[in-house]
């Protein structure tokens, strides 16, 4: 029987990171993935990641996936695709289906990095074609270039629901509504805000009660829910949609760990049944590790670090690195993990609804939590979001009002005029009125697309607002249209006076629109005159 030093199951962020780490320590590693395409879910993450430079913040998931694959191949990791692991027997023996037969092989260490499956909810018509997981929609459009539908209802406002809704708009779909049974939007406020300003309505305390259609979805009915999360009769509202996307959380795929004899525990904060793990990611079976979403639902950045920790522990156990080397590595990895697990959206805060202010003591925007956008008055109250009485020239207005682990704005500003500090969940602050050179790097770097360059002295009576614009067609200088508010409502006429789309912006161009000075504190999106869309 073929024997490997390490077998990794799943070629996603956790699995590839584990494989690279192990190979760097000298282990012979093979990665099995059942898909014909490697990368797990990374290659459909076309948005920029949060975190710090060490977490590859402001790099798009798809690019991180390419980097991981290259690194894995470069160091001699064997990635076998179309290889479905069917079971793990005693003594770390694995049955894998490959090329039309089942083969058995054995490993000294196994890292299970099988990720998660999407949670579902039942409602009338939920089995109809056209009802699908939000991840399914993302796979179709971002990996395969096919729209899942034309008019979409998104159910669930966690980060998956918000990110996929935005990507649906980028793919040219109409997101008719985002509903969530909870009274608060579950994901990052910045993700909600970038959707809301394009005109997508949020219905919190609402759920989908019905998908209508005989052969496929032809419409849906949503309704308000009461405190017990059941629909309130009489509040039903029909929606003209052809696709329902479900984004109500993920569950770890613990079957293989269970099959291998690892002890499972039920942990709602981790998404359900997960293998009981040491802080090195080892299960109750010696030499069997879990990393990434299968170890508890988080996101790709922490999955990558978990993969490294597990692989380093395996390398130590197999005698490839010393215990002291391991401690040094693990210390760094765990610090990095702690950084990204901080803030109000940290795994430990999952489901909490009692957070009412930021770490700095600013009251959270109720409007952002309930409707997806900051009210004008609330925006003005945050340290970097207010327009204030600044002098001439452009300067950043940062509508970042929740403690999320992220600091690219501070990282890219060449003038040092944006301050987050070492604690990357802190709200950014503007340091020094005059420092901004208008380079717009922060606009392109902000993974939440929450930074605007505002200049109130552009022309007599007119100012400009520079905004991130990740849609096609990209407006051109001279284009006329409407300026939209944070809620997506039309405010006034606007003209594009500049577009910044160079390589440094990494496909987040800045569109600068001219608006009356009275509107620069409110105008946050541009809708071209000729376009009905976006």
């Amino acid at each position, binding site marked *: 029987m073929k024997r490997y030093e390490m077998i990794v199951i799943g070629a996603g962020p956790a699995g590839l990171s584990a494989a690279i780490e192990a190979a760097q320590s000298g282990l012979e590693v093979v990665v099995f993935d*059942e*898909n*014909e395409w490697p990368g797990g*879910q990374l290659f459909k993450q*076309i948005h920029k990641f949060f975190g710090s430079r060490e977490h590859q913040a402001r790099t*798009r998931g*798809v690019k991180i996936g390419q980097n991981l694959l290259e690194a894995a191949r470069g160091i001699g990791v064997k990635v076998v695709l179309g290889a479905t692991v069917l079971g793990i027997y005693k003594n770390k023996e694995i049955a894998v289906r490959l090329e039309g037969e089942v083969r058995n092989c054995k490993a000294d260490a196994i890292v299970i990095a099988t990720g998660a*499956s*999407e949670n579902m909810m039942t409602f009338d018509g939920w*089995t*109809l*074609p*056209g*009802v*699908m*997981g939000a*991840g*399914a*929609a993302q*796979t*179709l*459009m*971002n*990996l*395969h*270039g*096919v*729209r*899942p539908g034309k008019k979409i209802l998104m159910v669930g406002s966690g980060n998956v629901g918000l990110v996929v809704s935005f990507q649906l708009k*980028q*793919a*040219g779909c109409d997101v008719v509504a985002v509903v969530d049974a909870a009274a608060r939007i579950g994901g990052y406020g910045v993700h909600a805000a970038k959707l809301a300003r394009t005109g997508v309505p949020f219905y919190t305390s609402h759920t989908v009660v019905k998908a209508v259609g005989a*052969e*496929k979805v032809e419409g849906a009915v949503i309704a308000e829910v009461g405190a017990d999360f059941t629909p309130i009769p009489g509040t039903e509202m029909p929606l003209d949609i052809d696709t329902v996307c479900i984004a109500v959380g993920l569950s770890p*795929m613990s079957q293989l760990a269970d099959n291998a004899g690892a002890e499972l525990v039920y942990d709602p904060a981790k998404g359900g049944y997960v293998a009981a793990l040491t802080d090195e990611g080892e299960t109750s079976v010696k030499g069997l590790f879990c990393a990434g979403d299968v170890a508890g639902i988080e996101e790709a950045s922490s999955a990558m670090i978990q993969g490294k920790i597990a692989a380093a522990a395996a390398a130590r156990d197999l005698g490839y690195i010393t215990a002291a080397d391991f401690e040094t590595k693990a210390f760094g990895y765990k610090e990095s993990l702690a950084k990204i697990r901080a803030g109000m959206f940290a795994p430990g805060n999952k489901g909490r609804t009692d957070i009412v202010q930021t770490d700095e003591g600013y009251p959270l925007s109720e409007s952002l939590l309930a409707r997806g956008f900051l009210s004008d008055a609330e925006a003005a109250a945050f340290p970097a979001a207010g327009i204030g009485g600044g002098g001439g020239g452009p300067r950043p207005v940062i509508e970042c009002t929740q403690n999320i682990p992220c600091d690219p704005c501070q990282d890219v500003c060449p003038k040092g005029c944006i301050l987050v500090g070492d604690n990357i969940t802190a709200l950014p602050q503007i340091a020094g009125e005059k420092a901004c050179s208008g380079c717009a790097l922060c606009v392109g770097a902000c993974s939440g697309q929450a930074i605007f360059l505002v200049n109130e002295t552009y022309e007599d009576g007119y100012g400009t607002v520079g905004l991130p614009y*990740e*849609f*096609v*067609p*990209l407006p051109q200088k001279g284009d006329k249209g409407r300026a939209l508010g944070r809620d997506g409502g039309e405010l006034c006429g606007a003209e594009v006076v500049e577009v910044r789309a160079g390589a440094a912006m990494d*496909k987040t161009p800045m569109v600068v629109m001219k608006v009356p000075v009275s509107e620069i504190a409110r105008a946050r999106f541009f809708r071209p005159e000729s376009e009905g869309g976006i």
Partner: protein
Amino acid sequence: MRIEKHPIIDDYGKGRLVCFSYNGDEAMGYEGEPVAAALKAMGVDTHRYTVKRHEPRGIFCAIGRCTDCVMIVDGVPNVRTCMTPLAEGMAVETQDGLRKAGEAHEAL
């Protein structure tokens, strides 16, 4: 349903355009893309009808986990079309229960 122009993605890395058959009719798709993607691009939503209730099903998870998108591919039933790369000349058929549409069911 194909995305012609995307603000972030320049290239989906598609293979060449090939012919396959869908329920006996000629169809086109890109070699190597999942069969389910090629069908979605053509506007096909229903992949199969269920055994007991004879209800339509289509793409649900798109990553091989739910197995709702199974069809008969080259005569083999229960093939997950979201995981199966399209190949030239492939015969893809709507699955009815555990069989081809119209074929007699044996007792289940």
